[in-house]
Structures are given as C-alpha cells and as structure tokens.
C-alpha cells in the first residue's frame, strides 16, 4: 500500500487523503514537517490564527525493525518564538502512523464553533468527533480515559489544560508504552494544537499494512550492524541505561558549565543531591526502574521510572534538563520536589525546560525566593489553574522578564536557554545563537565534543573550532531528525563511521534508493537553509542570532565570558 498524506480541515471538519507528491517522497520527520511548513504556512502569520498548520510526520526509518527509530516529528510556526519549529518525541504514536502508511498529517484551519474535538486514526482513516468530557482534564486522566474508550494499546497525543489555554509553555504529550508520557516539549506546539481545538488524537494500528521494505535482506543486515554499534558503544550500550541523562549534572558541575542561580555561576553546591548517581541509588532503593525505553525497539533505555518515598509511582521521563533547571538554575537541591514538579508539568502539559527557566526568572523577579521548592510547586499549580499569575508565567521567561523590568533573562529568540552555560561550553553558545528554533540544546549538541569527548574534543573554554563544531552537528542533527531515530544514536555515530553507513544502508534498503552519506549531509544542509528562509520571511535577521547582553559577565569558576563577535557568529551560515 502506498503512503498517503492526510489533511484535516478543522474549519470544514473534513478529512482528505492525498498521494505523496514526488518531491516529498524521500523525506520524513523534520525534513518533511519543515518542508510542508515552509511551503504551506505564511511565515508572517499569527501562530494561533487560521494560517498556521500543525504537521505530524514519522521518520524515514520509523516503523521498521531498526533500533531506536520510533520518534515522531511535530511542526508548525512556533507560538513561543515565532520561528519555524520542529519538535520530536518518542512514545507510541510514530510507529502506528508509519505502519498505517501515513506519510504526514496536516491539520489546518480553525474550528467555527468554540468547542473541543478529538481525532481518531485507524486503518479506515481519520474521524473527527466533538469532545466535552475530557476538556479541562490533565494528561494522565486523558490517556487513561482514551485507553478505556479505544483499547488498551491505543497511541495517544494529548493536550493538558495548558494547551487548551493556548499558553506559550504548552506542549503536546505522547503516551509511552506504559501509559505515562513523553513530550513534544519546546516551542509551544501545544498552543498550536489548542488553537485547532484538538484535545487529543488517538491512533489504533490494528490491521495496519506495515512498512514496505524494498530490499528486506539488505535492511536486516544493516540494522544488525547498527544495533551492534549501539550496544558496543559505552554511552549507548551501557552508560545511559544505568545512569540516564542526569549523569550530566556532576560532569557539567566539575567542568564549570552547570548554569546555577539563574546563570550566575557554573557550579552548584547542591549538585550531589540532584546528580545521576544519587538518582540511580534512590530509584533502586525505592523499587523504581533505573532503565526505561520511551518507545518499542529502543535499546538505549536512557529513561527511568522514579518512585516517591513510599515506593509509589511519582514520575517518569525525568531528565537532566528538568533536574538542572529546577535544581541548579533555581537552587532547589531536592530531587523529590523536582520529581513532583515533573509530574505536575506532564499533567498540565507544559515544557519542563521552559518552565524551569521561567521559574528562575520568577525568582529573579522576587515572586518567590531562590531555593523555595514549595513556592516553585505553587507557581506551577498557578499555571495549571490559568490564574492571572499563571497566565503571566505561562507566557514564558522572556515575557515574564519584561513584565518585571529584568535584564538577566536567559533566552534566544524568546526561548529559554537550557542546561549548559554558553560562556563555559562555548560550542553550545553558538548553537543557542544560530539554531533556527531559538535556544535549543538538541539542535547541535556541542556538549558531546566540548565536554564529553565524543566525536573528538574541542576545548569548551576557547572560541576556536566552535562555529565549525556547531555547524557540523546542526547539519547532522537535521538529518537524524528526519530519520525518526532517537538523537542519542549520535553518540555511537560520532565515534563509529560504520554506524552512519548502516543508517544510509537502511534508508537505501527501505526505499530501493542509492543515496550516499554525502547526500544525507546535503539533506541536513538544505533543511537548515529552508528553515532559515522561513525565519527570514517571518522577520528574523542576524540581529536575532545573539545571546543576551548579560553573558558579558564573568562566569565562575573559570571566569569565562561570551566574547564571540557578530561576524564570527554569522559565519555559521557560510555553507
């Protein structure tokens, strides 16, 4: 069966099914969502208005036997930044879409009535229904209810109250294999889905045709090589499974790049209490799961299930960025308080990174004190309630900072800066400044080479080599984001050329094509240029590829400063 494009028009409430245009045939994931957004969305449109579109696309390898290939891309114009946006997440949805031969789903138009809807996709197509019962409910309750309605194995994409309220912090949640959730976190795509008035989107792949592979034997062999590369590399084969992403706390602290007290210093006194080592021991002690994969076929198992003191489920998908943000950023050295916050944010449906940076700015503003864990939980509750304070917080760090007349507001293009200080991890600073989606750590994860010595070493405290490093990583990431592969495969790919070759081989075996590695790099470059073109048409210039002024301050312990010239930063685009 051929792949199809599904168009859901929320104004007419009609669904149409189209053949895949030739120029989209070889695309998937981010390559496809960005291509569709750049073609069909007016760059200067209002992100919550009738001209924005929400696009979902599985990756080029999703739904196959390739390990770690189950990511889903969601794209549109970001309600948070106003730039083009692609966000990818694990969970249950992507593989269902791929098996149902869905190439992409394009949701367009605003509903005429001020009510909510749900979408359901199965082998017969997409249906739209009115939704009342679950309006206002948190994501956990939505997922439980949809499983009752549609079957225990159903995949679900859902909005919490935040998405219904269309606030810029809102994310799109995806049900994971256990019924907990993963997140299309950044860029406010939950607000975009909320503007289309879609409370949830359930997907049932029973009876699905499955993914067609042109050369099955060749595919099998390449996927074997790839899986072996993942298992053999210490990070993807062992490290992440044992300690998870939170292992980064201690190394960033030691290296002096752990942003502390709203980006004042690079080390945090309470680092040990929130570290990956401590988290591992706590999880084991309380009968949680120190290893967990966010989608079927994941062999890296970087995630976890974290229980409370009584041994009951507290949260999962509890990652470094969240723990950094509330821990070091907000000076709260209490892992349980941060875990409770993680649970609440998942339920309300807000991005944990954006919320952490926003709470840091709220502390800067004096709304609560740095280190106040209870106060932090109350602020998150306010966001869920949609009170005036909640709405102000829900608008994000940039807006909050403006409301309180602050300069220490760590954002680029309106998006909060994540867990690596740009002054002492300079490759990340270049990524934050130049990424087409605002301050984004995964867009070009220079930390791998600056701090972790994966894929070589570029001194994090020197300017030399950082622009080239960030550029190469951003190009490679745009490619990986198009395959449906989890970005963590990059740890193996950066150190083992045979892993990259295996990815190329699998793509060729699936499509019966003969692309080369260079073609893949070419695709990565063209995606970045396409995204940048959209942003330029949306009104962005090189003046927006800058870090906030306050990063001229010295950052202890190394007294590092952000000292790239504008010309040096802009040379990123010389390709």
């Amino acid at each position: 069966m051929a792949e199809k494009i599904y168009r859901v028009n929320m104004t007419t409430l009609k669904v149409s099914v189209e053949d895949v245009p030739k120029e989209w045939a070889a695309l998937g994931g981010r390559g496809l969502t960005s291509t569709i957004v750049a073609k069909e969305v007016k760059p200067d449109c209002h992100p919550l208005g009738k001209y924005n579109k929400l696009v979902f696309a599985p990756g080029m390898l999703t739904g196959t036997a390739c390990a770690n290939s189950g990511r889903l891309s969601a794209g549109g114009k970001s309600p948070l930044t106003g730039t083009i946006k692609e966000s990818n997440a694990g969970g249950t949805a992507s593989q269902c879409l791929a098996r149902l031969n869905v190439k992409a789903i394009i949701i367009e138009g605003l509903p005429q009535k001020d009510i909510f809807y749900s979408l359901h996709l199965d082998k017969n197509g997409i249906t739209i229904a009115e939704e009342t019962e679950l309006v206002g409910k948190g994501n956990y309750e939505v997922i439980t209810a949809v499983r009752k309605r549609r079957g225990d194995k159903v995949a679900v994409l859902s909005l919490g109250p935040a998405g219904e309220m269309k606030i810029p912090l809102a994310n799109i949640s995806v049900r994971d294999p256990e019924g907990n959730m993963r997140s299309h976190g950044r860029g406010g795509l939950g607000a975009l889905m909320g503007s289309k008035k879609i409370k949830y989107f359930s997907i049932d792949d029973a009876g699905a045709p499955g993914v067609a592979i042109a050369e099955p034997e060749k595919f099998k062999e390449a996927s074997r090589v790839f899986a072996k590369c993942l298992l053999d590399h210490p990070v993807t084969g062992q490290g992440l499974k044992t300690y998870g992403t939170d292992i980064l706390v201690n190394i960033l602290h030691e290296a002096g790049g752990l942003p502390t007290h709203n980006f004042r210093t690079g080390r945090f006194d309470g680092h040990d209490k929130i570290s990956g080592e401590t988290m591992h021991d706590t999880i084991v002690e309380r009968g949680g799961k120190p290893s967990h994969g966010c989608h079927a076929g994941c062999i890296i198992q970087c995630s976890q299930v974290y229980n409370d003191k009584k041994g009951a489920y507290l949260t999962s998908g509890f990652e470094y960025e969240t723990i950094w943000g509330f821990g070091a950023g907000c000076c709260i050295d209490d892992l349980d308080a941060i875990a409770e916050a993680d649970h609440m944010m998942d339920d309300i449906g807000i991005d944990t990174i954006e919320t952490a940076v926003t709470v840091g700015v709220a502390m800067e503003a004096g709304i609560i004190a740095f280190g106040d864990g209870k106060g932090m939980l109350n602020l998150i509750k306010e966001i869920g309630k949609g009170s005036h304070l909640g709405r102000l917080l829900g608008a994000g760090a940039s807006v909050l900072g403006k409301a309180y007349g602050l300069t220490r507001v760590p954002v680029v293009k309106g998006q909060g800066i994540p867990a690596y200080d740009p002054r002492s991890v300079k490759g990340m600073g270049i990524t934050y400044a130049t990424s087409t989606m605002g301050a984004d750590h995964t867009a070009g994860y220079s930390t791998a080479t600056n701090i972790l010595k994966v894929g070589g070493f570029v001194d994090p405290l020197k300017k030399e080599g950082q622009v080239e490093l960030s550029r190469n990583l951003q190009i490679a990431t745009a490619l990986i984001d198009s395959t449906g592969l989890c970005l963590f495969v990059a740890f193996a790919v950066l150190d083992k050329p045979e892993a990259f070759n295996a990815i190329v081989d699998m793509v060729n075996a699936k499509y019966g094509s003969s692309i080369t590695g260079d073609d893949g790099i070419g695709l990565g470059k063209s995606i970045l240029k396409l995204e940048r073109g959209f942003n330029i048409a949306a009104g962005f210039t090189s003046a927006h590829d800058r870090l906030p002024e306050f990063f001229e301050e010295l950052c202890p312990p190394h007294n590092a400063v952000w000292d790239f010239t504008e010309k040096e930063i802009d040379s990123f685009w010389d390709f």
Partner: protein
Amino acid sequence: MRGRPTPPFFIGQAMNITVKLFASFRTGRFGEKNFDYPEACRVSRVLHELDIAASEVGVLLVNGRHVTVDSNLSPGDTLAIFPLIGGG
C-alpha cells in the same frame, strides 16, 4: 577498596591531590578522597593505582579543565575521572 596501596612508595616531596570518581568508577572504590602523590606525578599514575585502564576513561578534568593521561598534577589539584558518559 580496589587499587594498589599508596604511600609511601616514593622518594621526594609529597603533594596532596583530591581525586573524585563518578558513575561506574565509584563501584568498589569511592566518590571523593585525598591522596598524597609524588610532586609532578602524572594523571596516568593515579589511574594505574586506582586500577582504572586508560581505555575505560572518558573524561579527565583537573580543576575543571580537560587534561590527558600524560598531564602532570600540581599540589592541591582536584582530579575528576569519568567513564565515557552521555546525556542530553
């Protein structure tokens, strides 16, 4: 504790080094400890005495800066030793 017994098997001045271990390197060893080493000893000697193979090492930081196994240590240095780790 794994590793060979340390002092005093050297001649000359001793210097005090703080050694920090992380992730799997802590298993059967320690998190943070002070040691006396001969002046200007190399990082490689510390690894050897802790029974950590250079091939197992991911990152070495002295006072927060990246170094290699051949780097010399100075009095009062803090040496942090990490296996190959990742995250995001």
